[in-house]
Every structure is written in C-alpha cells, then in structure tokens.
C-alpha cells in the first residue's frame, strides 16, 4: 500500500487500538464503581459512552471509505473486515460497561462484599482483564498465539456464570433482604459473561485477519 492508502490504514489501525483501550478502561471503571459503589465514577463511565459511540461511527465510515478508494486485497482486505467486526464487538462491550454503571447510579446501596466473594466476582473480573491484555497484545503485535489464550479463559467465565444461578438462589434463601442486590449482581455477572464472549469473538477476528483462518464455530483446544 502506498501513499494515501498507507496513511489511512495506519489511522484506522490507531482508531482500533484506541477503541480497544477505551472499552477496556470503561469495563475497569465500571467494575470499580460497582464494587465500591462510587457514584461519581459511574457518572464518568456513562458520559464517556458518547466518545465510544463516536469512535464507533468514525471507524465504520472510514472502513467504507477505505474499501471504496483503495480496493484492498489479501491481508489489507482481511484487516478491514476484521476491524469492522472487532469495532462492533467493542461497542457492545462499551454498552455493557455503561449498563453496569447505570446500576450503580440507580441503586443507593453498596453490594455486600461476601456476596461478591461467594460468586467469585473478583476472579471473573481478573479473567476478563487478562483477556483484554491478551487481545491488546495480539492486536498490536499481530501475535496469533497470544490471541488463542482467550478461548480457555472464556470457558472459565462460562463456568462462573453457570454456577451463579444456584449460588445466588442459595444466598437469597439464607437472607431474603439481599434479593435486590442479588438480582443486580446476577445481571452484572451475565453482562461480564457476555463481555467474555465478545472478547473471544475479537480473538477469532484477529486470528482471521492475520492467518486467514476462520476459527468461528470450531471446537477450540
């Protein structure tokens, strides 16, 4: 790619990375706000959602422009196709972060720490954070091996999520007054599980972009 095309491709690449960083920090802040019941932090997350949407639109439009003007083929074409999907997934992750922040704003009680511990919430979040780390590294360095690490981790999240229903049921039976919190926590865990799925999708897209291998719907090691 020469000249204008090279410049535009690099710009898109930068936007992609930016979107990734932004959504990662949104999730981190939302989790922090949720756990510590920090209303101000939650407000910040909600306001930043505008920026996430703006970058989303920009990437969409730039991809259209790139396809129209530069007729990319091979790795450049896969790059455009991948980055559109990654962008879409990241925007969903951003939505989930905003959703979590909304819970904090609408609810005035802090979530009980024991409840969080029982459901392995911290561990769930750490897993997601490390998946973000893997994805960032894979994206920046075009490293397929690192991208593959997210598949196992997503399974961890699935496990935590599938256990959550029974655990929460048990806790509610112990103390009915925590029902409100428990339901909220249940929702948030579902959201985080969704975020894990989306991160796994992003991993697949990166593998497609770099190796032209479609690993979607395949059984992963």
């Amino acid at each position: 790619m020469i000249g204008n095309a090279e410049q535009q491709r690099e710009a898109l690449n930068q936007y992609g990375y930016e979107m990734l960083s932004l959504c990662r920090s949104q999730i981190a802040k939302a989790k922090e706000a949720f756990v510590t019941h920090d209303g101000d932090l939650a407000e910040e997350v909600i306001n930043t959602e505008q920026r996430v949407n703006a970058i989303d639109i920009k990437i969409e439009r730039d991809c259209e422009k790139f396809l129209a003007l530069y007729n990319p083929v091979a790795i450049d074409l896969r790059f455009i196709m991948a980055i559109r999907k990654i962008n879409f997934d990241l925007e969903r992750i951003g939505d989930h972060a905003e959703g979590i922040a909304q819970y904090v704003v609408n609810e005035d009680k802090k979530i009980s720490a024991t409840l969080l511990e029982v459901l392995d919430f911290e561990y769930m979040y750490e897993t997601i954070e490390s998946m973000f780390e893997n994805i960032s590294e894979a994206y920046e360095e075009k490293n397929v091996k690192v991208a593959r690490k997210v598949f196992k981790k997503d399974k961890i999240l699935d496990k935590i999520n599938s256990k959550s229903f029974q655990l929460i049921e048990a806790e509610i039976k112990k103390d009915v007054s925590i029902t409100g919190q428990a339901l909220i926590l249940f929702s948030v865990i579902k959201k985080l599980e969704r975020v894990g799925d989306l991160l796994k999708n992003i991993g697949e897209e990166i593998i497609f972009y770099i190796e032209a291998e479609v690993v979607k719907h395949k059984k992963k090691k």
Partner: protein
Amino acid sequence: MAEEMEITAEKTKDKTKDKTMTLDRIIDPALKKTSKIEVTDAKVWYGDFQAIKGIDINIKANSVTAFIGPSGCGKSTFLRLFNRMNDYVDGFRMEGKIKIDGNNIYKKKVNVEELRKEIGMVFQKPNPFPKSIYENVAYGLKIQGIKDKKFLMDRVEKALRQADLWEEVKDNLKKSGLALSGGQQQRLCIARTLAVEPSIILMDEPTSALDPISTAKIEELIFNLKDKYTIVIVTHNMQQASRISDYTAFFYLGELIEYDKTKTIFTNPEKTQTENYITGRFG
C-alpha cells in the same frame, strides 16, 4: 504526523437527546486550500466541432485533482487549456476565462513561454529527448539562458532525486535517455519537468503505458510531490483516481458532470451518471 494522530473532537449539533459527537482526527487540509486555477465558462471548438461546452471549475492548490471520464469526453483537451498546448492544433478556438493565481492566461499580452515555466506537463507516452540524461533534465533551464554549470548540476540532481531516479542513474548521467526502461523514462520526463520548478504539474495519463510496478512508483512519487505542487492528472483508470487524488472531476461529452472530494465521488456521488460510470454500468 504524531500531532495529527491526536483526537480533536468537535461537537456538532447540540441536541439534548442526541449524544453523538463527530470526530475529525486528521483535520481536512482541503478546508484551508486556496484556488490555484479558476475556470469560468470555458468553451472550446476545433473548427466546427465543439469539444468543451461551458465548464466552471476551481482547482485547489497543493492537491491532486483527477479528471475522469470515457474516451473522447474532452478531459485531455480541457487539461491542455491550462498550459495552452491546444494553441498548436489547427482550428482551435476558445472562449471563457482561465485564471491561474488570479491572472487570466488567455489575454493577448500573456507570454506563453513564461506560462509554461510555471506549468509543467507529463505526457502519456514517455518522450525523453534523444540526448543524455543530464541534457534531458537540464534542457528546461538551458533554454531560459542559465549557463552556470554548478547551478545546473545541482538542479539536475535535485530533480532526479525528487523523481526517485537519482540512485538508478547517478553513475552515468551521460547515458542516452532512450536507453532507460519505460518506467525510468517516464520518471526522467517527470524530473525534466521538476527541474524548472513549476508550481503546477499537469499529467495526461502518465502511467497508462507502464507496467504495474512502474505505475506504483510514480503514484508514490505523486503522493510525495503533492505538498509542494498542484497536480492535475487525467486518467482512464478509476482505481488510480481513487487511490491518489484528493478531488475528482467527472467529464462526459465535453461537460463537467460532477466535481467533488474524491471520497464523496467514490462512496456517494450526487449524480446518477457519475455513479453509473464509476460502477462500470456505462453503456
């Protein structure tokens, strides 16, 4: 480049419910460009045949403007109005105003030779003179009366470097220009034009006779030149126009159908005719 990568956010409409913002990371330099060439109601006849039927257009400075359109639509004729190369064609007659840097170039008192020192031209088939490489590049300066050998050599080297040919020919500038390959010959012609340091470069299908690698080299060259020169390029190859130009003008049967930023023309042109042409639906 690093500064350009910083986000500069601009709020658009202040709708209370609409929370979207638009971003223009790389501020469009086109917004700052001035008009280099202003054409008002230009018409051209060859004898009784009217080749150009009243065109208005403003070519912006320091940009690449592409002229596209089917064969015989008048884009080459129109291009040649800018450096008055049509004057040599029998039966040529023009009406209308063409201003370059604000001066009408078709006024009687205009010295055509001076005009052409400001406006260079590269042709479709590479046409180096049957002389040495050095003589080819120095020609434009020599006819201006410049004799200083050091000055000439400096300019020749500078032009050859700008045309990305210096490394390939620096060891033997006395070699005949005709002994170079097609792509090299075309770069030699570009160097020849650059040596005179014009402000506008006109290119009439400069790569249509070349192989893909030479074409890519020259497109890269055009991209690098755009900062200092105003470039207008006629091309049959729409992908080329979309790759390298900032503005695109679509001509058909002597008329200007549409003229806009290249990205608009190729993503969402206004006129159906334009869309039909660029999608290849033209009859």
